[in-house]
């Protein structure tokens, strides 16, 4: 899952960086509200899931994304 998420991050930010649970928008230059929504939409597309507005607005760090994915995404 981490490798797929890293690929999604690359598509949005056009650069590679290590993904950790603690990583948040404060640590990544350019991770603003627009990049954030692009990231969410890319994750939806990559994993075939959908998020609600509240889930998106409650995200604070990458750990929250992992938790949401674990809850919503059932690997084949």
């Amino acid at each position, binding site marked *: 899952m981490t490798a797929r998420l890293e690929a999604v991050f690359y598509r949005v930010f*056009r650069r590679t960086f290590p993904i950790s649970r603690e990583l948040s928008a404060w640590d990544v230059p*350019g991770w*603003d*509200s*627009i990049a954030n*929504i*692009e990231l*969410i*939409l*890319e994750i939806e*597309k990559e994993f075939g899931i*959908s*998020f*609600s*507005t*509240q889930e*998106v*607005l409650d995200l604070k760090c990458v750990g929250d994304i992992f938790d949401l994915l674990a809850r919503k995404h059932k690997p084949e």
Partner: protein
Amino acid sequence: MMHLDSPTFWLAFSLFFVLYSFLPIGRRWILALIASLAFVAAHQIAAVCDLFIVSLVTYFSALQIDSHRVESAPVRRRHLWSWFAIVLLISNLVVARSFASVAFFGISFFTFQMLGYLIDVQRGQCPAERSFFNLLTAFTSFVYISAGPIVRTARFQPQVVQPSSLKIAGARQACFRILCGLAKKAIGEMLALVANTYFAKLSSHHETLATWTAVLALAGQYYADFSGYTDIAIGIGSLMGYELPENFRTPYFSTSVADYWRRWHITLNEWFLHYVFTPLCLLRPPAFFRSIQLRVALSLILSMTLIGLWHGWNWNNLIWGLYNASLILLGLTLRKSLLLDRFISSGGPLIRRILQTGSTVYLMILGQVLTRADSLAGALRIWQDLHFSPLGLRFGGPRLVLFFAVLAGLVIPHVVDHLRITRPALFCNGRVLFIGSLFLLVFILTFSISGRPFLYENH
């Protein structure tokens, strides 16, 4: 009219504050509600009636939404109540903004607060408030009803019912913040004199330095006036035991247009992020809208257009909204292609910052011309005069003095706010606060032109 910088207001507030301080904390909201209704009535009696009716609709609709949250209740009924109240509130706002004769005082601010509250209840973010009068107190507070910040009712409601008690240190900081706001209002009024003189004569060309002086005065006036109001509101809020959200973070020090919109009128932009932009992006689109970039771009264009129209129900503001959306999208595209980053990174960090901030301020100032000019043709003429005026560029002693005085009026409030944000300890120091307050008091008494409405009070 009772504006937050008028002697009448401060006389009334002093009497109110003495009574408020003597009341038990749990009862203070009653006096706050009476004072708020009196404040609105002093501006416009009809606004009190409108406020009362839409508050009742919001209150009952939220209760209905909450009561249909149980699993056995049909979801459609909950949505029906939400949409009923949302459509009614928006219709009330649109009708009021379309006809000047029914433009109710503070309508844009209280409508957005009520809409946010309803959507939060619908999303299950907060329970519906059971006490109508508690809710009315949160909707009508004189502290922010006329020009923001737009508060989230879920967060603010508990503070109304149980405000925190005031400490001496907090009171000193609150008074200093109020004085900063009043001083900014005085600066805004002086800058307005320069801007108004210029914008009153738009039918012909002006020379370049005079045009730059006028547009910088306009930029300074917008910031000093609106952030000055916010300072006063936050200061009064602190005295009353409320913690209001910040509304500005030195926007003219931004490094991109998107960054600017995160620092200017923060509570309005967060409102649009929560209730318009994010839900629009997450809509399940038809096949031809599957492109993520297209969905984000369309949501951004719609959100920025609505932000433009919120500032004024006319073509100028609509174009201004589209102008800002285009710039943000252009910035995103350049950032994605890494062209801009490579170009800016070729200099050192200081050069990079100067280039980023300089270009952002330049673009924002061009945009503000759209909101102030009487027509698109007038705005285009100003844009031409800023760069290649047919009358040329004339330097003269008085012209240069005025230009630098205006520049100081734009920069000094920003520098003070920058220090407040980056060095908060400085603004807790008793000696600094005392000397600063004395200086501000003398400045306000010397230069204040009180009694004129704040710009955003027109909303």
